[in-house]
């Protein structure tokens, strides 16, 4: 695998839209060609090279291309958007839409990301070592096809609205989450190692939520069923199982109604 290193040298005075920072856009290109890729500040078009020092070498294909982005990227949007393969490492905080609509490959952010990371994700791996903003792994507005597959791992906390319209894949949050988790979800799994506030599983059809810490307020549509032993993805212990959303439609399998499941840890 070849590596291209970008180091931000000029901060945009508004925000930089850099959806070209992907292995797909870099693969097979010379450094000069990569520097010529388009980025935008408002309605102005610029070169990637106007904002970044670029060094190293791109692979022939996205699979063989790794991108390392250094510096304060908290005003840079769309890093890794729609990428299909290869690797992106962000050493710093990044703005919105990291890994949005990504289909494959791996993104590691050694810092925080703002909202809409992993929007409409179809595959691949998104690792955030800091905190994530709102709408992590959620669907784009209006789309009933949210996260389909892949994994998102956040070491710190996440904001509100994670996993909206989730259909598959997994989101693991190391810390706490804000309100509204897995709204309208029809599949997938969300693991919250810290505490949750309220509105977990609202309008949820299918899928699983695990909460290891506290929940401020349970949805009225989630009913306690029983205590169960859980051993999933390294999460072990005794959990209280709730099913819901009782107000929502659910399909039946062999005469049994299939509900979404919410597990809250009682003891490790």
């Amino acid at each position: 695998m070849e590596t291209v290193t970008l180091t931000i040298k000029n901060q945009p005075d508004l925000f930089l839209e850099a959806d070209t920072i992907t292995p797909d856009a870099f693969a097979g290109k010379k450094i000069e060609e990569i520097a010529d890729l388009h980025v935008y500040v408002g309605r102005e078009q610029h070169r990637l090279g106007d904002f970044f020092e670029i060094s190293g070498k791109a692979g022939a294909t996205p699979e063989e291309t790794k991108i390392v982005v250094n510096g304060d990227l908290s005003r840079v949007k769309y890093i890794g958007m729609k990428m299909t393969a290869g690797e992106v490492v962000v050493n710093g905080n990044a703005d919105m839409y990291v890994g949005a609509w990504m289909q494959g490959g791996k993104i590691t952010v050694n810092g925080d990301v703002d909202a809409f990371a992993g929007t409409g994700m179809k595959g691949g791996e998104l690792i955030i070592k800091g905190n994530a903003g709102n709408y992590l792994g959620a669907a784009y507005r209006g789309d009933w096809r949210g996260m389909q597959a892949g994994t998102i791992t956040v070491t710190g906390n996440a904001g509100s609205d994670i996993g909206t319209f989730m259909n598959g894949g997994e989101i693991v949050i190391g810390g706490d989450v804000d309100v509204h988790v897995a709204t309208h979800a029809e599949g997938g799994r969300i693991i919250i190692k810290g505490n949750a506030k309220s509105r977990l599983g609202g309008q949820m059809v299918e899928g699983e939520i695990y909460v290891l810490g506290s929940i401020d307020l349970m949805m009225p549509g989630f009913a306690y069923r029983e205590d169960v032993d859980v051993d999933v993805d390294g999460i072990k212990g005794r959990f209280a199982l709730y099913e819901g959303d009782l107000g929502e439609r659910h399909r039946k399998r062999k005469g049994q109604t299939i509900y979404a499941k919410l597990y809250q840890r009682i003891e490790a």
Partner: protein
Amino acid sequence: MAIRVNLITGRTIQQGVSMEAGKEKPAYTAACGIIELDPADFKKLGAFRNTNVRVTSDYGNVIVKAVEATQGPHPGVAYIPMGPWANMVINPNTYSTGMPTFKGTPVTVEVAKNEPVFSSLELVRKGCRGELA
């Protein structure tokens, strides 16, 4: 004395009428530079009706006149009609929806008898110039 209440904002007919009559006019201040408190909360605050109070949240503070709730009882809930006074203290967090959290901001209310209630134009002007306490 200070009390903690949950602040909501919204329309009132006086707010609407005075807004249309001119936001630079005293009637607008009279309609919107107020906080409606439940009688029980007045008691806790230990203040008379029509006393100026300072309302403080995590996001700012503002001087308004405390009046008795017109659509109550609602103990623990306070109401400032929508407008620049309320917007000094409401929670601007949009939760990435575009919408500030105009309703449901925890605030402290304390008596500030001798502080003036500014007109809407004064309030934003002073605020923008950093001339407010």
